[in-house]
């Protein structure tokens, strides 16, 4: 069994429009992008559509992917992020989340962090203090603006910003070689 090597698969899509490679990429990324879209406030149906749109864009942009610039997942993340931002702008929303739509972050957040903690043991992200990981996650994955993270956690905006700054500094120190 060949190991999943997304950068090579993207390259095959980009150079020879290899549909088998694309199906493999779809299998890995579409459900994860869907999860990300749900975290960003999309309904499951909408999230499915946005994940499809992300994979279509991946197909169309595959030739532009440069593995020297970004890991495959970082590249897919930027496409998904742009799809989510474009969708919100089409719908005339300033931010991904409104208070009415806000879900209770507490419980799912804790579970996600717990589930991820295992997977992240070997990774540097888990080395962050939980309070920092939480704000990083809410910002990068859930797509919440800093002001809203402050509201949801009942913290002053300055505290949220300084946690993000500390976390980024730490990630920068440890993940410097990642890209």
């Amino acid at each position, binding site marked *: 069994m060949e190991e999943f090597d997304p950068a090579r698969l993207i390259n095959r899509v*980009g150079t020879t*429009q290899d*549909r088998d490679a*694309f*199906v493999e990429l*779809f299998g890995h990324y*579409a*459900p*994860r*992008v*869907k*999860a*990300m879209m749900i*975290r960003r406030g999309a309904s499951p149906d909408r*999230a*499915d559509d946005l*994940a*499809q749109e992300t994979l*279509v864009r991946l*197909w*169309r*942009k595959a030739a532009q992917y440069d593995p020297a*610039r*970004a*890991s*495959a*997942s*970082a590249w*897919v*993340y*930027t496409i*998904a*992020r742009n799809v*989510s*931002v474009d969708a919100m*702008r089409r719908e*005339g929303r*300033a931010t*991904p989340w409104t208070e009415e739509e806000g879900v209770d972050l507490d419980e799912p957040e804790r579970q996600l962090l717990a589930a*991820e903690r295992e*997977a*992240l043991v070997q*990774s540097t*992200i888990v080395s962050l203090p939980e309070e920092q990981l939480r704000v*990083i*996650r809410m*910002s*990068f*994955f859930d*797509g*919440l*603006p*800093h002001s809203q993270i402050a509201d949801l956690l009942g913290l002053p905006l300055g505290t949220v910003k300084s946690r*993000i*700054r500390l976390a980024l500094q730490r*990630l920068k120190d440890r*993940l*410097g070689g*990642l*890209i």
Partner: protein
Amino acid sequence: MTSITHHPTDETLAAFASGTLDEARSVVVSMHMSFCPVCNNKARRYEAIGGALLDRTSPAAMKPDALQKVLQLIGTDLQAPAVKPEGLLDHYQLGKWRWVWPGVRQRSISVPVVSNIKVFMLRAEPGIQLPHHKHTGYEWTCVLEGAFEHQFGRYGPGDFDEADETLEHKPTICEGAACVCLVALQGNIEFQSGWGRLIQPLLRL
């Protein structure tokens, strides 16, 4: 000499990389990024964090027909479309240059106004001193040509200036060429002098 000395904060770049900045501010940050390899590298590092989180998230099962639909959609694409380099402001309409103040002109940019944030270009002749003012919200600026100066230093092409409502300032355009800036402004500008207050209504877009 066009070395960039004023950058967005790390928090701003992180917000940009995570897609949580509003469109108006994203446009100004993108403009800075088009000048600045340092900030591009930082943003890429933050995107790598997003990629790591994406890899490790629990998947949400796609609908059974999703793959089929996507394969149909891409079925007609034999070749990836040629990439046409596009300008940052290509998606928007630029208004006409309008007079706002002696030696100062402004043109609107059709970024949709959300939360009272407007995006425009400002062009000021060398030596002009903008009236002493403060803001009711933030004002983010990226210099495109020329330079201005205020109490925090000199801002030339590519430099980025984040001002918020706590700041009062009085920028002066440096000698040489006219200074053209891209600005995202939330709320309004409040002049601190009587003369400025007289023309205040003119500055509203």
